[in-house]
């Protein structure tokens, strides 16, 4: 199956700093999704972005399909951004494979 590598594994930021989270995968992905997991456990979909760039608020996702990578940029981080970020990859109608996540801590 797919190998999904996320980096860094953990990140600590001062409030207001920017963050760049990386996701690299081993095989062609036709579906790619970024998730945020609240400290309490709830998973929230941030982007469905198999190719190109998407924005929402302070978040930007960029996927370069032929280079098998995707990034999630968080600008002007806030303490409420703290949590774990996952990317998940699928090929065609096959299953999604998840990375192990990036744990983000934003300190005031």
């Amino acid at each position: 199956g797919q190998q999904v590598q996320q980096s860094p594994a953990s990140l600590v930021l001062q409030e207001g700093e920017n963050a760049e989270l990386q996701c690299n995968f081993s095989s062609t992905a036709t579906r790619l999704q970024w998730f945020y997991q609240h400290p309490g456990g709830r998973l929230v979909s941030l982007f469905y972005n198999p190719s190109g760039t998407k924005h929402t608020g302070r978040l930007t996702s960029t996927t370069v399909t032929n280079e098998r990578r995707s990034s999630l940029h968080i600008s002007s981080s806030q303490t409420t951004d703290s949590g774990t970020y996952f990317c998940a990859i699928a090929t065609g109608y096959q299953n999604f494979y998840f990375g192990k996540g990036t744990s983000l801590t934003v300190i005031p």
Partner: protein
Amino acid sequence: EAAVTQSPRNKVTVTGGNVTLSCRQTNSHNYMYWYRQDTGHGLRLIHYSYGAGNLQIGDVPDGYKATRTTQEDFFLLLELASPSQTSLYFCASSDANEQYFGPGTRLTVL
């Protein structure tokens, strides 16, 4: 917005106990999934289904059964629970593109 619900939200059982986790989606999605999440492992797929009566084996199926009774309902069964099955369990449904997750069930096996 897709709606996936899970019950119970929390469950404590003893080793050897019998547990059923329930999931319902109201989006007419064909695909439904059960994952477990453990520290250091991200989410791992247990079983999935692409329609009522269908069941497919995921990556970590040992100790679990599943049943898809209708398009809306997908159940995960632990017939002889073990402490190694203590975990956070997520159900998800999907269309041809993205997945929609339920709120999770926290299971503790003593």
